[in-house]
């Protein structure tokens, strides 16, 4: 920051005052252009926010007639008034639990390796780094193809099971956890590491007892966001042969399954209006869950913003 002894608020005030003075002498046309430009920028942002509000209101209004206990107590049915999403809700819980168990340790491990151990002059470490960036931009349906070829059929041959879905989604969100974990670890100042090493701790002891605890909020935020992405993904699951008419809850990782987004998609695809109402109601449940997770992530991030 170049301005010495001036807070940014003061600098802003001075700048605005100067601008206002200069502005007063401008031609009318320029003043109008300024105003129109500012209005257009505001409209740009408003489009996003109005869309969000419209979307939420549409879902709540359309789903309201079916937002009742039948939704979580009943199983899918061809009679709309009897249909519910219990097997889908349990399927999603099973999948997300397994995703969390696999992706959080592996993602943190990769983040620790890249930040603390990897020697960037080695080509393989640069390859890993570049590769993670690229994987984050691969379309989710392509991960579905990977899961189809390796997990559901092919080498693992798990079939259309909870485990195949969980492994596919784990690979999909792994780059998110890794990238967030790296940022959190990088934000821990070096002085902490040096103090620990100076007291005779080994490198791994330093990481485990000093660096990781300090990085927990950042890692938690990234992990929650990654899991909320995994909960909403439907495209990769369509590739694995997820069923949409599952009349039982999964009883283990090798059980057949359906999941909330897949169940919603199946209901949307039905021609009857009652099933669309049901889809909207299930969407409200899904969005409520995701909003809570997002709020938790934002809350953790804001509360724990540590100043070193």
């Amino acid at each position, binding site marked *: 920051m170049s301005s010495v002894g001036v807070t940014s608020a003061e600098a802003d005030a001075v700048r605005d005052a100067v601008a206002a003075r200069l502005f007063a002498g401008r031609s009318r046309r320029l003043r109008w252009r*300024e105003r129109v430009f500012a209005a257009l920028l505001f409209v740009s942002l408003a*489009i996003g926010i109005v869309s969000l509000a419209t979307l939420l209101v549409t879902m709540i209004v359309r789903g309201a007639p079916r937002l009742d206990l039948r939704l979580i107590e009943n199983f899918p049915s061809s009679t709309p008034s009897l249909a519910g999403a219990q097997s889908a809700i349990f399927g999603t819980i099973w999948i997300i639990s397994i995703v969390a168990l696999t992706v959080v340790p592996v993602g943190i491990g990769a983040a620790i390796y890249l930040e603390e*151990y990897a020697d960037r002059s080695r080509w393989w470490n640069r390859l890993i780094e570049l590769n993670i960036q690229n994987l984050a931009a691969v379309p989710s*349906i*392509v991960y579905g193809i990977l899961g189809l070829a390796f997990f559901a059929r092919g080498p693992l041959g798990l079939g259309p099971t909870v485990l195949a879905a969980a492994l596919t989604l784990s690979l999909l969100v792994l780059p998110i956890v890794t990238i967030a974990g790296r940022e959190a670890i990088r934000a821990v100042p070096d002085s902490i590491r040096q103090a620990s090493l100076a007291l005779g701790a080994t490198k791994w002891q330093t990481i485990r007892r000093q660096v990781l605890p300090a990085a927990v909020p950042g890692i938690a935020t990234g992990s929650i966001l990654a899991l909320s*992405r995994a909960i909403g993904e439907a495209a990769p699951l369509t*590739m694995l042969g997820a069923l949409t008419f599952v009349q039982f809850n999964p009883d283990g990782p090798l059980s057949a399954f359906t999941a909330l*987004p897949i169940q919603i998609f199946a209901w949307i695809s039905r021609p009857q209006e009652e099933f669309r109402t049901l889809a909207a109601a299930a*969407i409200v449940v899904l969005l409520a869950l995701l909003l809570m997770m997002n709020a938790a992530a934002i809350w953790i991030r804001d509360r724990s913003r540590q100043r070193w």
Partner: protein
Amino acid sequence: MRWGERFVVALLFVCGALSVATTVGIVVALAIPAIEFFRAVDLFDFLTGTNWSPLFADAHFGVLPLVVATLVTTFWALVVCIPFGLGAAIYLSEYAPDRARRVLKPVLEILAGIPTVVYGFFALVFVTPLLRDIWFLPGDPPSTFNALAAGLVMGVMILPTVASVSEDAMSAVPRGLREGAYALGATRMQVSTRVVVPAALSGIVASFVLGISRAVGETMIVLIAAGNQPNLTLDPTKPMQTMTAFIASAGIGDLPTGSIGYKTIFAVGATLFVMTFFMNLASARLVRRFREAYE
């Protein structure tokens, strides 16, 4: 180094290397069935054919209708997300007061976190009926399933990504550049459009390319709202099937392993992967060319 430490490092390396294994897995998973596919179907016919009906008895494997549909939906997504994403980024970075920014950014993040199946439903039950009601252009109003509504909603979905990546790039422009321009008597609009945007151009272009790659790879919105029937046309009011929508519907169809229909999934998937891969490469190039370093 202690033995235990060495073991830990090895374990952590495996975690990192898993990402490379994933990429190799994707390439192998796509390439092997795709090569088998191209033994049965001529590559040139695949890329230039205008008729896509791989699952019919009289099968045709011309991928152009799928590619054109992908480009049409992507185009309409960009019409929304590029101008409005950039506008929102400029507003957040140059115009919004601090407190407004602290509220607005999380709202945009929520928009980015909504599942695409929800956006698809929104396009189908809200945007399409709205377009049909207010249609004033010559020609028929959009059909129940159409590429236009899917593309526009996709644009709204991508808007937060474009806005947040561009805004990060603009925030990184040093304050001194802005102050210098203000001192010379520039207005806020002039500072935004002639100083900040050019200085942040590399990040802004990267956000556009990221947006394009998201639009090309998006599946559920087009699967639900764009009609899912192959149709070689540029008219966005008509139903279409994109590459991703074909892959997903073939996946839902649960085709027997080894059949020609099963292999088309991988041929189209490989085409999609190659397109997004080169786009990401192009974005890296562009970023390097436009990069201006301040230090």
